[in-house]
């Protein structure tokens, strides 16, 4: 599905293509808006440095045509004037060029920071549903490679483009003032130039879109392979993985090469147009000089100007190229930024500072995306302080109920209410404080173990962190590490065992101290003593809290107030564990199996 969206963008219809381009330019201009004053300042510096630069040939022409004869007749004033003006222009030009380099770096780095923040914030806001469909690799690709290509454009690109264009305009203007006929020749050369540029723009746009897709695929594959490197090595898939990656790398190379080839034609074309024009100016001017219609100095200056006019073209061509590449990247980024979170923030958030933890499912219907209905209709009331276990087979809808409670997804119809307020209306900050979900995957971020626990409550004191760790029985383990709580958790917490990671993520949840705690298979990797410890901690810490537990281990389930057996998205049994065991339903069967597994004496 993701691949389809990615490739559909490659070959859009003309209107679609125009819309995409407009949107990407709109993004660029919205990035420019906050820095527009600095950008204008940079532009002013560019104008200044270019004015200083074009002064050169004019002063040389003046020196040869006016100061030389004056000098020959003994008057040194014009020469001194010309030279000192030139010297001044040179120094000024240097200062302004240096200032331009600094100013443009400030502008472009500010824009990049803005873009990075925007994309990061937006991906954090987007719902899990989006993340699951878009894949992590593509999001990473957007935030690294696509941002990078804007960086390449801004990194001197804009300045060079502006400098170049301005230099050309000024040079053309100076030439027209010096000798309008030569200026006319130049004007004629613009026509094929524009046609060539237009051709290049259309073609390279297509190429660069393909290029962005190719690079995203390459990154997706890379990230997936590196994340699963253990399995790749254990199952000897190196050669296959390498072959697939090699193909993708070749695709990326081919699209890059195609884009470069287009740029080559463009570059060559511009050089040709420029050189033909210079020869024409020389021919026309030379013939006129012979007729006496033009001074030699003016001819020299005209030819110099004509050359100068075309000199920045190859650089402009190069940076027009980065503009095309960046536009394609911005299209993808604008696309990502245009994604609406399917779990939107409320327009008028209701505060819920001290949640009690009273939960109600009111005629809830739900399915993932446009997929089939998973929960047909759920009505449920969990009074504040009750501990509830969800039991049922894989795919019965237990995790779905948990995800709705944590508002990872929104219901299709009906409502989930916390303290009689619709989850969709609660201020997100209050909601996250009130409801915390611990999942099976205990992800650790790079940083210290202490910081990982503190994720549950930013600004927590060391005492609070240690208390939480002690509660789940991971304190002694952390203390035994080289730097205690300041020990760095390695990448993906690999050095910690799966059970230890789950304990750390439990400590996080305890530190967060929510009104409603949801545990989705959060104890699966714990050893028996660890689980017992967590059980104990749960008993004391969650005595006055609502909790929803999904666990296949009945040892975790038996201690709760109430068990809900879920099947096909419906609650089929509801009661205290003891009542359900006595009642002789599904839960009773499950309980019997569990007892057997405990009593079972391992073969021997």
């Amino acid at each position, binding site marked *: 599905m993701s691949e389809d969206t990615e490739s559909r963008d490659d070959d859009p219809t003309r209107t679609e293509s125009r819309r995409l381009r407009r949107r990407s330019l709109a993004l660029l201009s919205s990035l420019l808006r906050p820095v527009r004053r600095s950008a204008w300042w940079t532009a002013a510096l560019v104008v200044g440095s270019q004015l200083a630069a074009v002064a050169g040939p004019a002063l040389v022409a003046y020196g040869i045509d006016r100061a030389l004869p004056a000098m020959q007749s003994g008057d040194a004033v014009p020469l001194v004037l010309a030279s000192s003006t*030139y010297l001044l222009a040179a120094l000024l030009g240097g200062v302004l060029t240096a200032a331009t380099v600094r100013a443009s770096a400030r502008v472009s780095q500010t824009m990049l920071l803005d873009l990075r923040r925007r994309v990061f914030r937006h991906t954090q806001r987007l719902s899990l549903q989006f993340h699951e469909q878009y894949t992590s690799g593509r999001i990473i690709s957007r935030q690294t490679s696509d941002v990078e290509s804007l960086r390449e454009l801004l990194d001197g690109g804009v300045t060079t483009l502006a400098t170049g264009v301005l230099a050309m305009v000024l040079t053309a203007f100076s030439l027209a003032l010096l000798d309008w006929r030569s200026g006319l020749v130049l004007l004629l050369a613009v026509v094929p130039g524009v046609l060539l540029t237009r051709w290049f723009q259309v073609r390279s746009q297509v190429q660069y879109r393909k290029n962005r897709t190719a690079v995203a695929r390459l990154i997706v594959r890379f990230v997936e392979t590196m994340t699963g490197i253990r399995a790749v090595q*254990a199952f000897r898939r190196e050669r296959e993985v390498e072959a697939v990656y090699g193909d993708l790398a070749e695709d990326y190379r081919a699209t890059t090469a195609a884009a470069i080839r287009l740029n080559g034609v463009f570059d060559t074309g511009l050089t040709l147009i420029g050189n033909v024009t210079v020869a024409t100016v020389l021919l026309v001017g030379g013939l006129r000089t012979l007729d006496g219609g033009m001074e030699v100095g003016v001819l020299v200056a005209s030819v110099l100007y004509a050359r100068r006019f075309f000199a920045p073209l190859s650089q402009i061509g190069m940076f027009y190229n980065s503009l095309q590449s960046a536009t394609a990247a911005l299209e993808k980024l604008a696309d990502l930024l245009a994604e609406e979170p399917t779990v939107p923030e409320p327009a008028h958030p209701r505060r819920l500072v001290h949640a009690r933890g009273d939960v109600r499912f009111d005629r809830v219907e739900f399915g993932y995306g446009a997929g089939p209905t998973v929960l047909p209709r759920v009505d449920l009331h969990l009074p504040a302080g009750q501990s509830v276990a969800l039991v049922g087979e894989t795919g019965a809808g237990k995790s779905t109920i948990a995800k709705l409670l944590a508002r990872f997804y929104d219901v299709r119809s009906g409502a989930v209410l916390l303290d009689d307020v619709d989850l969709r209306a609660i201020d997100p900050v209050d909601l996250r404080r009130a409801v915390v979900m611990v*999942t099976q995957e205990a*992800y650790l971020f790079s940083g210290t173990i202490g910081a990982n626990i503190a994720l549950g409550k930013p600004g927590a004191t060391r005492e609070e962190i240690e208390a939480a760790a002690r509660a789940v029985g991971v304190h002694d383990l952390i203390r035994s590490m080289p730097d205690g709580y300041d020990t760095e958790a390695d990448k993906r917490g690999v050095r910690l065992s799966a059970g230890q990671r789950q304990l750390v*993520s439990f400590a996080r949840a305890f530190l967060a101290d929510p009104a409603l705690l949801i545990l989705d298979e959060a104890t699966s990797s714990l050893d028996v003593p660890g689980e*017992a410890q967590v059980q104990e901690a749960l008993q004391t810490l969650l005595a006055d809290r609502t909790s929803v537990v999904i666990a296949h281990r009945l040892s975790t389930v038996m201690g709760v107030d109430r068990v809900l057996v879920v099947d096909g998205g419906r609650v089929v049994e509801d009661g205290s564990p003891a009542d359900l065991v006595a009642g002789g339903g599904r839960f009773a069967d499950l309980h019997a199996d569990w007892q057997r597994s405990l009593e079972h004496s391992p073969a021997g």
Partner: protein
Amino acid sequence: MPDVPPPPSTTRVLLQLRRWARPALPRIALGGLTALGASLLALAVPQVLRAIVNGPLLGDGSTRGVVLGAVVVLALGILEAFLVWCRRALILTPGTGVERVMRTDLFRHLLDLPVEFHDRWPGGQLLSRIMSDLSTIRRWTVFGLVMLLVSATTVLVGVVLMIWTSPVLGAVYVAGAVPVIWLGFRFREDYKVVARRARDQAGDLATTVEESVHGIRVLKAFGRGQDALDDFARQADELRTTEVHKARTLSRVSFALGAIPEAVLAVSLAIGVTLAADGHLSVGALVAFFATAAVVNNPVERLGMLLAMTLDARAATDRYMQVIETGSTVQDPVRPVSLPAVGGGGSVVELVGVGFAHPGATGAAVLDGVDLRLEPGETLALVGLTGSGKTTLLQLVPRLYDVTAGSVRIDGVDVRDLTRDELRSAVSVAFEDPILFSASVRENVLLGTDLVGPAADALLQEALDVSRAGFVHDLPDGLDTVIGEEGLSLSGGQRQRIALARAIAVRPRVLVLDDPLSALDVTTEAAVTAGLRAMLAGTTTLVVAHRPSTVALADRVAVLEDGRITGIGRHAELLATHPHYRYVLTALSAVGTDELEGVRG
């Protein structure tokens, strides 16, 4: 992240690229020549101009001479355009080929590097190396390097021409070069450091991005999006500061390269006109001097940018080499042996005095003096507290890690004497954290086998049966449903069963299972256990167990405590005689009994 010691000169660093650029070198050299040709042609134009001014215009006034001059300029111009095209065709496309080879080489190397390396290196640092560092290197090899040489040559030839045109003016111009060169050297030292820092920070930023995406569920569950954003923004701001610092360094050299050559021309104008007035210099020569200077000043101004590009490429190369020159600590032996053939009985697996410590880790070793022997076809459960080293011990068998002391032997052969390929086709693993790939169910389960056709189908079916993964038939496209990150997301229990099926489908001599049933409910677990027991006959199996129900799979149990085996025997014996074993396993039973009584009462 480990850092390299103070490295050699930029040239030495960049010369390392020869290894990959060699096949493209002739074309790069030829391309460089055409680029040089194009630039020299541009220098020839002022000479033609001089001839026209001194000849027809100020001299004989012949129309033919003027037309001829213009035609020569035109011909030179067309030739220049042609050479520009040649340069493109010759080097830019092969340049992308060099980049691809470097990229696939790095990827292959990363696949070869052991798990221990990947534990240490953050994903973003690897990603930024294989993507943005390589594209920087590519741009430099095909553009920066060539332009640097061309610019330098153009300047050199131009200066020679200027000296030839007028020795005095030429000398003035050369004098101006002294401060430029001095500033250039100083710039190099400053810039080098900042360039490397900027790249490392960009890599860290990529790591943060990767973690924020992979850890999105945790961030969402705790509502920590804002904190993650603050953290990211702080890092991004550091990068911005470094980049601005880099620009400040560059701006100093831009000033020098922009102002000094033009200032020299101002002086030359005064001297040149005076010389011409005194008749020591022809007007044509004066014109040619300035026309040449105009051509030369362009590449001089560009030198700053090209130098910066070169130093960026150097930082990128350093970063690339840092990874590609990291030797793999888990390598195939020089003279590999083969496993002896065994009958249907299964293999003997022995751990002899096995020790393991993470490289560079302080404190106690993870495993220390572990002796263990699995008889042919035996299933041995490994029991211990979380963090006692069970998972590490398992991963020593297929050499995902290498022992740091002692040896692991299969049928008497040290696993380090086998090729990894042979070893890993003999040993199959089910990880506790089931890693599935974006591929169909069929491909995921058959990942470790080379079988195709009906045999593969039968194997697939059997593996799915044993692991009770029949649910896959109900998925939208059945066995062809794409799962993994780019496909359907499955629950933990479902993923675990597919991972188990994958391990079984290899039909290995030795199977290592890391708590393979942890995410299954009791009913399913009992069914899988029954199926596994039947299937495991003849397969030597090492299984990590956290619960008595998993121990039920095993013939014998070994207790791992603080990196040592402190007990080995049957479940019942150990339960009676080994206090630690009792603690690890019966805490559950005790709780269970209590609750059972509570329920009954």
